[in-house]
């Protein structure tokens, strides 16, 4: 926040400003569309859900949907971003309970898998988008994804500070490798219906393999 005279006053005024009824109605409409879209994306997948179906499920016209969202990908992105924020919070909370670097990373990954386990079609659509030349980099640069990278890097740094990992742990490259492994396990969950326990066991081995070269002694 900029500390210039008068700005505090302006902020207070902005806070107490009462939204107009029209703005509230618009907000309600948005939330209704988002709830309907989330349900349909979860059940039908991204390709299977149409704007027409989403509008019908929200009890409004397709025109009303388009008044709030430019297209289906806009709708999906909004849902995905909201989820990613919750996901990165859940993973951060989980990591803080870890006692060692392995433990913290595994707890974070497990929290991620648990988060998406109940909504795999959404995860699948998000993955599909992540490989698109235009949308992938945008997703990669989004604040919640950046926060997840930072979370992994921080845990590695803590591992170095606690003496579990050597000073030359190549944190940046190892962060990328751990992230790759975390993501690569999703297809097991999506296609083969792996349990959370099985996913965790696999992630535990991958974490150990990637950190083995950075152990002290």
């Amino acid at each position, binding site marked *: 926040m900029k500390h210039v005279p008068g700005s505090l006053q302006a902020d207070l005024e902005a806070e107490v400003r009462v939204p107009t009824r029209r703005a509230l109605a618009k907000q309600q409409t948005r939330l209704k569309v988002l709830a309907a879209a989330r349900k349909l994306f979860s059940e*039908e*997948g*991204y*390709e*299977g859900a149409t704007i027409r179906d989403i509008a019908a499920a929200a009890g409004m016209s397709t025109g009303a949907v388009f008044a709030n969202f430019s297209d289906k990908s806009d709708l999906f992105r909004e849902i995905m971003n909201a989820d990613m924020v919750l996901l990165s919070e859940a993973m951060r909370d989980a990591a803080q309970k870890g006692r060692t670097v392995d433990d913290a990373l595994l707890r974070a990954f497990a929290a991620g898998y648990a988060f998406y386990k109940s909504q795999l*079609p959404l995860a*699948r*659509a998000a*993955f*599909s988008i*992540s*490989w*698109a*030349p235009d949308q*992938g*980099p945008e997703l*990669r640069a989004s604040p919640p994804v950046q926060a997840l990278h930072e979370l992994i890097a921080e845990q590695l740094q803590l591992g170095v500070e606690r003496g579990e990992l050597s000073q030359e742990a*190549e944190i940046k*490259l*190892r962060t*990328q*490798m751990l*992230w*790759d*492994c975390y*993501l*690569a*396990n999703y*297809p097991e969950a*999506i*296609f083969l219906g792996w349990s959370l326990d099985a996913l965790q066991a*696999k992630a535990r*081995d*991958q974490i*150990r*393999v*990637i*950190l*083995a*070269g*950075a*152990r002290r002694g």
Partner: protein
Amino acid sequence: MSIRKSQKEATRQRVLDAARDLFETEGYEETTVREIARRAEVSVGSVFTTFASKSEILSQVMADRLDGLYAELDRVAPNLRGSTADRLRSMFAIHYAYETRRTKLFLAHIAAAYDWTLGPNTRPYGRNMRLREIMRELLKGGVERGDVDASVDLEGVIDALTAIYAWTYRLAAWEDADATQLSAVFDRQVGLIADGFRPR
């Protein structure tokens, strides 16, 4: 082979060739079965007597390409020299070189792995048992040569290498990275994993 059977085989091959070219030039999503049929000069109906869906055609196109890749690897594998890490690097460099010859096709294959309508006969990206087998042989050879610790969890190493190899490929999707650039990143990653599997 009967005439009828060889005709069927010829149709199948024409469909696969047409599909491979269209997927590469136009993209998978943009290509319709009708266009594939037109290019292959067969009817839409005869495409569907051979393949259940577009995703099945893609899967077969990729399976054929992978056969070519693995024939190449089988030729190269006995001649690999040097440390286990270097042998792994050479093996994956061949993968990246092969896959970047038709990047768009390969990306379609990856995207299809997340396709909601994936048919039961498709073989999605990342489920490649031959690749795992080659890595396993290479690592076992390393144990014998003495540069891989015998107590190392080989399947864990294979899992980690597979994940990293596959996701490094996204640099081709996002930044148009070529095989050399992909290998440069992957080579460093193999180095870090090798630091962990070396005998102490």
